[in-house]
């Protein structure tokens, strides 16, 4: 098999020999197991047991939530003693929900049967894998069932089994291959059955000769279509994208997943776990963990139940007292340093490094970047790390994005070679999170702007409609008036206008006079300015009213001749139902927007529906107002009056309860009666229109 190359990469000291001398040991069952509900990518599992429950080994204790999630099982038999927040293995160092099981030492299995995977439906098999809680054991912990159930839009041509284990120190996969090669092959068969790839490649670094030998021996016996490809040792050859490039020469396009180009990568540990789950019916409750570092006397690998505290592992490897300076879970390149050894092992815990101070000294203070370019030579994604560093440091995030910051896999090769000891990876993480936050903000702002614009448009539309309605109303009123007049006086149309004109003119003159008087008074500082001011105001209003009456009248005269009678009154709509509809839509939209993975198209459609619903409600409301008008009721005013009346009632009630004086109480009670009567009257008036 041809092995392709990938750009960059580094050769850090391997430090793997220490932990491969002894065979894999079994760790004794710990007293208490702490099982975090989030051990995988996606949503945390939902506990299905309660405190006090007795659980058997392999019993489901938490079920997956949503598509990307995984089940959890009791690693041994015992009693659930707590479901609470505890320290978990996460880079944040924060506590998270855990199920605590006190083991009874019996290690009693729940009933479990192997599954004949060839005899059942594929969907059923995927469901089984999901129930068995299998998640990627290489590091990321991606739920395996999702990767094996890609749907018809992804045709898998190549299955790659990742056995590279490129990080220094870690030997968990190495030992697994040495001791359980045939189980791994059985697991691969299950994956092949599901994905039906045209070819399967197993990539392994050439620093694991024993594992290679074991695999070759197992391959000779097994009936399996698999090519074992030995790749040169170079970090990070086990990175998913790098391994794909090594084995196939193909690059996964930026922003895509391997499945988009017909490739699925699975870890050897995952394959073995699949075999145990399907062919033995044992859910994922244990894994091999490498315990190494100079601070332990006897480094090695251990079959460890999930939920076992790190301290148990460290003491099993004989931790030298006082020697441990840094505790890293995972490898030295991408692992996470933790502050306490009470953290439990989870599905992705492949290694613990108990390092002494001399082994992993604190990084010296960063020096200025001299642009030496060593990082560029090391970068497996072929980025320009130093440029990204300058951009991140200068908060030029847009430029960082354009320099493909998001293709950075945070492998740490650049920081490893940096002669100025600059913590480059931290700079990239910082820039990435800033950009993500910025984008989220931008999305939120866009939503707000869209909402605001929609609201503006609606208000404008309503204003126009209102104006039109007012016009129509005025026309109708004028028409009625005209008709009345016609009935009383035979021909008074012109005189009417004339009278209004005169009235307006008189009002104007009066106003002018009063204004002159006011000015005079103000200039001379005479008394009674206030009264004069009031008069002027009153007259102003009178003048305006006169003018309006005149205008509306002349307007009606022209339209009245053209306009026919009003449209027939519309049927009374169900306002309550419509209102409910609006609030339902609003809640839905809010929920969709608050979701973690915002689905833009869904939000758009929800928005449109909300808009529709509110429009329907507004229309219905307007129709009601119109309907009320025909009965001579101003519905809006009526509603306001009703609300005021309600307030008045409660106010009086409160006053009564506070008052000590009996006579005062009596008066208040009388007031209350009146207010209540008024309220009831208004309510009855409004009733037909609700």
């Amino acid at each position: 098999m041809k092995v392709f190359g990938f750009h960059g990469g580094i050769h850090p000291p391997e430090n793997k020999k220490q932990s491969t001398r002894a065979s894999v040991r079994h760790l004794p069952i710990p007293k208490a197991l702490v099982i975090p509900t989030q051990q995988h990518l996606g949503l945390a599992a939902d506990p299905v047991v309660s405190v006090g429950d007795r659980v058997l080994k392999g019993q489901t204790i938490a079920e997956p939530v949503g598509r990307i999630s995984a089940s959890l099982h009791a690693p041994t038999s015992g009693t659930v003693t707590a479901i609470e927040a505890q320290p978990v293995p996460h880079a944040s160092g924060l506590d998270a929900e855990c199920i605590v099981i006190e083991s009874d030492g019996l290690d009693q299995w729940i009933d479990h049967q192997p599954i004949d995977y060839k005899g059942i439906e594929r969907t059923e098999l995927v469901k089984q894998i999901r129930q068995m809680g299998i998640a990627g054991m290489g590091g990321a912990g991606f739920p395996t069932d999702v990767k094996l159930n890609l749907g018809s839009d992804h045709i898998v041509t190549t299955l790659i089994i990742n056995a590279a284990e490129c990080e220094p120190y870690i030997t968990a996969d190495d030992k697994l291959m040495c001791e359980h090669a045939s189980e791994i092959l059985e697991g691969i068969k299950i994956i092949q059955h599901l994905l039906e790839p045209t070819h399967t490649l197993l990539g392994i670094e050439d620093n694991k000769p024993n594992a290679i030998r074991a695999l070759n021996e197992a391959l000779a016996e097994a009936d399996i279509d698999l090519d074992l490809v030995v790749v040169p040792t170079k970090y990070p050859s086990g990175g998913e994208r790098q391994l794909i490039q090594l084995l196939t020469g193909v690059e996964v396009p930026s922003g895509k997943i391997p499945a988009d180009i017909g490739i699925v990568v699975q870890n050897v540990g995952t394959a073995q776990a699949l075999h145990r789950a399907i062919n033995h019916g044992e859910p994922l409750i244990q894994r091999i963990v490498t315990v190494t570092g100079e601070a332990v006397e006897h480094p090695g690998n251990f079959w460890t139940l999930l939920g076992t505290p790190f301290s148990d592992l460290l003491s099993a490897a004989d931790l030298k007292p006082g020697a441990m300076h840094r505790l890293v879970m995972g490898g030295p390149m991408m692992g996470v340093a933790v502050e306490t050894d009470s953290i439990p092992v989870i599905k992705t815990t492949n290694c613990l490094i108990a390092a002494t101070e001399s082994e992993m000294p604190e990084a010296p203070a960063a020096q200025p970047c001299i642009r030496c370019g060593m990082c560029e030579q090391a970068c497996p994604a072929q980025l320009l790390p130093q440029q990204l560093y300058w951009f991140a440091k200068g908060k030029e995030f847009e430029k960082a994005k354009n320099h493909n910051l998001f293709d950075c896999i945070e492998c740490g090769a650049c920081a490893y070679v940096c002669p100025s000891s600059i913590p480059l990876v931290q700079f990239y993480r910082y820039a990435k999170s800033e950009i993500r936050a910025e984008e989220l903000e931008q999305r939120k702002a866009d939503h707000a702007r869209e909402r605001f614009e929609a609201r503006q448009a609606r208000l404008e539309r309503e204003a126009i409609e209102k104006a039109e309605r007012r016009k129509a109303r005025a026309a109708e009123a004028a028409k009625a008036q005209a008709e009345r007049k016609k009935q009383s006086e035979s021909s008074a149309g012109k005189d009417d206008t004339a009278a209004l004109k005169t009235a307006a003119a008189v009002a104007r003159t009066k106003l002018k006079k009063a204004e002159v008087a006011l000015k005079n008074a103000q200039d001379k500082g005479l008394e009674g300015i206030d009264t004069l001011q009031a008069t002027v105001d009153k007259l102003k209003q009178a003048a305006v009213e006169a003018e309006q009456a005149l205008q509306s009248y002349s307007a009606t005269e022209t339209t009245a001749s053209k306009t026919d009678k009003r449209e027939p009154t519309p049927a009374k709509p169900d306002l309550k139902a419509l209102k409910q509809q609006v609030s339902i839509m609003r809640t839905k939209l809010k929920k969709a927007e608050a979701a973690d993975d915002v689905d833009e198209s869904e939000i758009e459609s929800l928005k449109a529906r909300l808009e529709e619903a509110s429009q329907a409600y507004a229309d219905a409301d307007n129709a009601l107002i119109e309907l009320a008008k025909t009965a001579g009721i101003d519905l809006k005013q009526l509603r306001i009056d009703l609300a005021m009346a309600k307030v008045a009632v409660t106010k009086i009630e409160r006053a009564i309860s506070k008052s000590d004086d009996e006579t005062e109480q009596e008066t208040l009670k009388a007031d209350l009666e009146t207010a209540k009567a008024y309220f009831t009257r208004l309510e009855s008036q409004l009733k037909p229109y609700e």
Partner: protein
Amino acid sequence: MSLIRMSSPHVTRSNTSSGVMQLVLLAMIPGILAITLFFGWGTLIQIFICLVSGLTFEALALKMRGLPVSRYLGDYSATVTALLLAVSIPPSAPFWVGLVGMFVAILFAKQVYGGIGNNPFNPAMVAYALLLVSFPVQMTSWNLPYVLSGSEGWSIPPLSDSIAMIFAGSTQVMDAYTGATPLDILRNRDGFTTEEMWRSSQTLMSGAAAYHALSAAWFMGGIYLIYKKVFTWHTPVSILATLGLVSAIAYGVDPSNFVDPFNHLTLGATMLAAFFIATDPVSSATSNRGRIVFGIGIGLLIFIIRTWGNYPDAVAFSVLLMNLAAPMIDHYTQPRSYGHKRARLGPKGE
């Protein structure tokens, strides 16, 4: 139990910036030995002057900027600059030449821009260019080379004479030991062809070998640095290949008016420039492709300035001009990242 929390990676290669600079200093030893062997003690004295003044200026600037002096002096960057300038100026130049040079190099070319890592131009070359323009007489009087085989030829000035030239400015002694450089002779031919110059000039006939040997010494140091991965082959190879190719074409067309490629590469400061000056990472282009473009530019400019310009050698100007172009080169020479069909080019990376 006190465990520390740090971000990954948890191990780093035990190399440091000062380690890189120390390797550069180490690689300069053959060159410095050769220059002393062929041109006298002068260069060692110049190194002393440049080092003392350079480190003093650097310490002063760091103090003024409120930075930890010993830590930044320990990065050896000022030391490298001092050595590069010292081997570039004539061995018999008066002491104040180096002094002024380091003043400019450290304070103006480096510290005002923000110190190590932030200088857009190679500090030693800024200083050299300024000295060349300001003090052309002192800067073009090179020592005549001492040739081992020449019985009646020259000898290197004794230490006392070197001291007299540098500190007392003794012109009599100076005239005895200095003269035009081979490149100068080949440029100002007074109507003679290059072949005639090669036959007539004592400096060329017996002295060229010293220059060749010196170039070989720089070349050795440079190869060592590439072997040690201090820098990649891209810049030096593209400089040497470009200069060699262009001068070969010119020489092939008109051998009597152009210098042959071998002497282009070995008679002047080409090797020093290709391996020790143009490879200064701070002021050069950043990507591998960018460094090739950067090197081609320097190679071309050296040929152009040497052939048609006013100065016999052209390394400083060529490097400075390309320093100027480096940011733009960076914009257009980004590598194609993993998973991308093509590289993003231009200042906005489109």
